[in-house]
């Protein structure tokens, strides 16, 4: 047996809550050679994580092995007894989880969790394990490698936890490492550091790897081969270069196409004799949380002197990493967080900072759509009622007129009329986000604040939602404030972009040539950090002057 991993005709079944049996993996076969990294790529529900976990002989509760074999280092994981599988976990096969923040036990010191593998399997004396762990911390470029292990998980950052979880996987000297979307939850600048660390230790150790991801650009940096999955079946398989340059399967091409979104053609400013006031203007906003001090500023400032302008019929993008204050900006504009200082103007007229002091008309003209449709839609209210409520509230609609308008709204977001009798839980993620949007449209607004509305959606669905937003804009003369951490999505819909960092608006740029016009070092760093489909991108970063000069210091400060 030459290959490290040989999966043959793997079938995994699942029992749904209603007792129905479904097959979620339908006869998958694939190989991983010694020292090779193979990527499993696909959207949510494609079965990529289920296959990855089967390499450890683990099926999540409710799932079971229905057929086929998973051979790792000569042993069939599906046929072993549970106690024999446990012996191989952590020693032969190790796992790096998607969310390290959740995968670390909050009650145990980091070092004890990292060396737990050695303790469970009696691999080496604990003192030796500690020394090895510190070496790994150093190899993974963690700060204070000698003492970081003494901390608890809540005392280190997300990027550090992700690298600590890699140390936890590598301590047992595995032959195969499984990466389950290890950088999905991280900011782009953090992602680079983590990817680099992974790549260097994998290369040094000569280990085989399986890298699960939905992000082709990330996979392109680290994988030798790519397997494209959909609906529990392999769609296409090939070397990284072959998949990127010469994809055969239509689904793979869709995935690649989602990577090259059409850049939005900027809307020209209307020239007219009487200047039209901007649809929305924000002037010198200070906002935050905690007690107010003598200067009238809150203790914890999230926004510091932020100003921006949204012209009628145009779209404004707000981009930045987690914690930069972009969502707070949306909440301030919507009146959910009253600002400590500054003005918000709608069509040139100032609005009260507090939601409760705004008139119904002001509320109607400015609507917000939240990131997670799952939590924004009341799970026990049918769709028709969710859409009907704002109609009654803003327009006093009742009975047949209201029903007719609900049908129209559903039609606007391309959902069938019959959907109004369903509950949110019966809809897919993309459908829920459409309902979420339709609820905002129900008020007949002029400005819609979109707070990361595409972040929880698969790439192919994102493209459809963006297309819908543009179509609605043409028909209804809307203006959007589009908040996102993803540059490509912002570029696909916005005319202007403001870049935020640490609560400050560092730069305002036209979306179309953001690359060429960016001047602020943070903007350049952010742009340089977005992964590209080119497999040589990660390695070439070392030579990128923007990244080197501006990046290193601020990056290390953040990570």
């Amino acid at each position, binding site marked *: 047996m030459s290959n490290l991993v040989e999966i043959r005709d793997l079938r995994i079944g699942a029992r749904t809550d209603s007792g129905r049996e479904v097959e979620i993996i339908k006869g998958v076969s694939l190989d991983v050679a010694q020292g090779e990294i193979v990527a499993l790529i696909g959207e949510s529900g494609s079965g990529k994580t289920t296959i990855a976990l089967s390499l450890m002989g683990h099926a999540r509760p409710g799932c079971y092995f229905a057929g086929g074999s998973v051979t790792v280092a000569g042993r069939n994981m599906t046929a072993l007894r549970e106690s024999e599988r446990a012996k191989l976990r952590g020693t032969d096969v190790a796992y790096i989880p998607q969310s390290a923040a959740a*995968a670390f036990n909050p009650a145990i010191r980091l070092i004890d969790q990292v060396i*737990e593998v050695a303790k469970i399997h009696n691999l080496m004396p604990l003192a030796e394990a500690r020394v090895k762990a510190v070496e790994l911390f150093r190899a993974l470029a963690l700060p204070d490698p000698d003492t970081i292990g003494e901390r608890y998980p809540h005392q280190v950052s997300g990027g550090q936890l992700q690298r600590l979880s890699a140390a936890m996987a590598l301590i047992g000297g595995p032959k195969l490492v499984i990466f389950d979307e290890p950088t999905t939850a991280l900011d782009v600048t953090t992602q680079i550091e983590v990817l680099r660390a992974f790549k260097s230790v994998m290369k040094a150790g000569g280990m085989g790897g399986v890298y699960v991801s939905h992000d082709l650009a990330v996979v392109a940096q680290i994988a030798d081969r790519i397997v494209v999955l959909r609906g529990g079946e392999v769609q296409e398989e090939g070397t990284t270069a072959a998949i990127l340059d010469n994809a055969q399967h239509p689904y793979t091409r869709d995935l690649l196409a989602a990577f090259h979104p059409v850049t939005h053609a900027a809307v020209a400013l209307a020239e007219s004799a009487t200047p039209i006031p901007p649809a929305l203007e924000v002037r010198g906003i200070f906002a935050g949380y905690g007690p107010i001090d003598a200067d009238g500023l809150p203790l914890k400032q999230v926004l510091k002197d932020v100003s921006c302008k949204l012209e009628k019929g145009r779209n404004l993008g707000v981009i930045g990493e987690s914690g930069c204050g972009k969502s707070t900006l949306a909440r301030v504009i919507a009146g959910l967080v009253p600002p400590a200082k500054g003005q918000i103007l709608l069509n040139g007229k100032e609005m009260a900072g507090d939601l409760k002091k705004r008139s119904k008309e002001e509320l109607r003209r400015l609507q917000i759509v939240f990131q997670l449709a799952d939590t924004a839609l009341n799970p026990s209210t049918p769709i028709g009622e969710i859409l009907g409520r704002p109609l009654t509230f803003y327009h006093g609609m009742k009975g047949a007129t209201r029903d007719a308008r609900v049908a129209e709204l559903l039609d606007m977001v391309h959902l069938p009329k019959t959907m109004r009798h369903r509950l949110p839980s019966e809809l897919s993620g993309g459908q829920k986000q459409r309902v979420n949007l339709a609820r905002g449209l129900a008020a007949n607004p002029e400005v819609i604040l979109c707070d990361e509305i595409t972040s929880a959606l698969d790439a192919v669905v994102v493209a459809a939602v963006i297309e819908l937003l543009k179509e609605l804009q043409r028909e209804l003369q809307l203006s959007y404030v589009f908040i996102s951490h993803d540059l490509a999505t912002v570029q696909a819909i916005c005319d202007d972009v403001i870049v935020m960092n640490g609560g400050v608006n560092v730069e305002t740029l036209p979306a179309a040539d953001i690359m060429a016009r960016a001047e602020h070092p943070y903007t350049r760093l952010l742009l340089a950090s977005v992964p590209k489909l080119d497999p040589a991108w990660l390695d070439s970063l070392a030579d990128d002057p923007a990244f080197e000069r501006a990046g290193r210091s601020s990056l290390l400060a953040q990570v």
Partner: protein
Amino acid sequence: MNSQIRSLILARLGIAVITLIIVSFIVFAATEMLPGDIAQILLGQAATPEAVAGLREAMGLNDPAFLRFLRWMGGLLQGDLGKSYANNMQVADLIGGRLANTLQLAAVTALFSVPVALFLGITTAMYQGSIYDRAVNFMVIGVISVPEFMIATLAVLVFAVWLQWLPALSFANDVKSFWELLRAYAMPVITLSFVISAQMIRMTRAAVISTLGAPYVEMALLKGASRPRMVLRHALPNAVGPIVNAVALSLSYLLGGVIIVETVFNYPGIAKLMVDAVATRDLPLIQTCAMIFCLGYLILITLADIIAILSNPRLRK
């Protein structure tokens, strides 16, 4: 211990004190609302109206309620629990021995039932869905559904009447040797343990199972940890908060809610004393008993909350 933990605990203790003051107010108000005139009851049917009025004056019953409340509180703070109306004895003397008996019974029951309940709760969570888990759950639900006087009566019927292994009544005061102690306590302890363990088992199992679903427990599985290790090392430390609260709630029942058990086994505890006091309108005794029950409950719940605060790893340095 860092300053954040200290301030959290101090705040929790402050809440406990405030609760106690509110409770004392409610206890006083509730006893005020008891129907019937004490002077009338004490003097009996044949008393002349003048005698009743005289006694009311002497007992200070004509003063406004608030003044009497302050007087009572002042007495409590100085350790003066007042005098029993019924037999003119000091309340402290009446309660002293009885409270010791109740605490003794509570302590023996706790020592026996808490370890058993925790063991059963944790092991059923560990082997969730197994025959063992189902059998224990079946029994636990059965015990919850049967009222305690039924268990107590059945216990007397089986062990005292049919088998004649144990005495039907528990005279805790006559115990001379360890063997006699076991015999005297066996039945009340078994009955009480049945009642309070059921809840502890269910709550412990639920708390452990909910932490078993956490991603870090799956991570432990993928590191090759055995099932006992996953539960004991990874799930349990994070389930301490809900578990100690369930234990505290169950144990608080041992102080106030044991009246049926004390009555069936004729055990001279404080709950029985309180019921007798209600029959004779002995207000100072009722108030003191109620305050003792509330205090015990409050101490247990506060302790559980403090343990939960201490077990929160996010507050550790």
